[in-house]
């Protein structure tokens, strides 16, 4: 069954599954919205071959048509990060959060979240990240205990947090 785009009613051509802290999110985008978010779509001509090669390295799992995501700021791809060992710009970390998260966790003896100093301008972000981690941990616990009603509430809190609601602790405990 063909899915429609998350942002409009056009049929989606990009399908991606993102797992954040054990929570699975699906992304379905039409060509126009995919390009807006930095996905490079293959064309019928030469570049498609290049894209295919890159995909082989990037190990991106997506249903056809296959795509290579690039950083909208500096055009870096995960393939080039793997080749050089270097990231292109700070925005790459947002664009490739999951891919880089796996690389970083392996290099950092399993650690995946920053602890320590932070710039003053990032204080609110740090609070949100701490709350996100706490909710993710509670979600894993709720799922393990088969407390699905509680898990659904926690998931709603996580979605609200991602959409910009304040990082409060209310309504997460069972």
């Amino acid at each position, binding site marked *: 069954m063909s899915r429609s785009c998350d942002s409009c009613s056009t049929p989606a051509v990009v399908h991606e599954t993102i797992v954040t802290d054990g929570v699975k999110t699906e992304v379905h985008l039409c060509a126009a919205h995919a390009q807006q978010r930095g996905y490079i779509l293959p064309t019928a001509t030469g570049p498609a071959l290049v894209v295919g090669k890159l995909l082989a390295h990037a190990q991106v799992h997506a249903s056809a048509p296959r795509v290579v995501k690039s950083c909208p700021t*500096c055009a870096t791809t995960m393939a080039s990060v793997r080749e050089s060992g*270097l990231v292109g710009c*700070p925005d790459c*970390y947002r664009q490739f959060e999951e891919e880089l998260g796996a690389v*970083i966790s392996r290099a950092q003896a399993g650690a995946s979240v*920053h602890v320590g100093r932070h710039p003053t301008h*990032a204080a609110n*972000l740090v609070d949100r*990240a701490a709350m*996100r981690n706490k909710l993710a941990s509670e979600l894993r616990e709720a799922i393990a205990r088969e407390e699905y009603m509680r898990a659904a509430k926690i998931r709603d809190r996580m979605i609200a947090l991602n959409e910009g609601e304040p990082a409060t602790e209310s309504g997460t405990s069972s």
Partner: protein
Amino acid sequence: MNGASDHPHDDAPEDPARMPAILGLDGGEAPCLDCVLSSRIRLARNLVGFAFVNRASPQQLSDVVHRVQSTKLSGPFESGVRWVNVQATTAADRLLLFERNLISKPFVEALHPRCVAMSTDETSSVMVNEEDHLRMQMLAPGLQLQPLAERMFALDTSLERGLEFAFHPRFGYLTACPTNVGTGIRVSAMLHLPALHMLEELEKVQRSAKELNLAVRGFHGEGTDALGDFFQVSNQTTLGRSEHDLVEEFTEQIVPRFIEYERASRRALVERDVASLDDRVYRALGILRSSRLLALDESIKFLSRVRLGVALGRIRDIPLTLIDRLLTEVQPAHLSRATGCELGNGRDDRVQRAEAVRGALR
């Protein structure tokens, strides 16, 4: 030095002769100097709104240089800061800064716009456009990681008033190499482990370091060889632990463990066969005091043995600080500066090195 200036916006070349003759580390009463040559803290930071150095255009890199140069540097830089436009310096000057541990090997060899700020006592430097936009480092003799860390965090905080650092709530401070994200801190100690070497225990040390998730590097840090029983140990991981916890662990557990191991080996050498130990130490001193041709690696090797003799009180007329100063002064660029002979072109500097060492240990 070409391209050096005390004023951020003045690019007038500086006279090379104004550079101090030795590294500004006065190790006289430094803690654990017998086994720890120096302590170092390094922080990596990048600016918001700029591509990382590997991806930035020359114009962007020049903009980063100007942005950092127009920001006030606090702490050790308050009593005077010297900016060096590294791109405009000679290879000999770049090597000189490297030998003083003020810049890294990749920074010596790069071709893009970059500069370094040095405190006048040469214990602190800020490399602009190394692998990251800012690589700040502070050095101190002996084991002094805690005070270094406090000074470093004060510098970081003051810089943050003028510069916006790239930060991600999950990954922490963002760096060009994804394996440096988080705190972006590198805590290291340059250890002197001659007794462990003599007792053939270095392999155990390496294994122990690996178990503790530490990197073991050579005389000038990353990408350099171990010379004369000097080994730099530093943290490999930068994510998931606070800077304070890491510095505390290095100060109270990790480095003391190596020190205790080395000291126990030194005691064993004295107890087992002091005559043999004295022979090795005094033969090394004899060679340094009388040789006419002295290669770099052998000078470091014999200085290392003499350092052991001084630390154990077997040699009493030479201060440890003189040996540590010589460890820097026998390096090629320092020798070239001191003797006025040009570096490179296959020039044999063994005669000058032997003369310099004989003169210092007379």
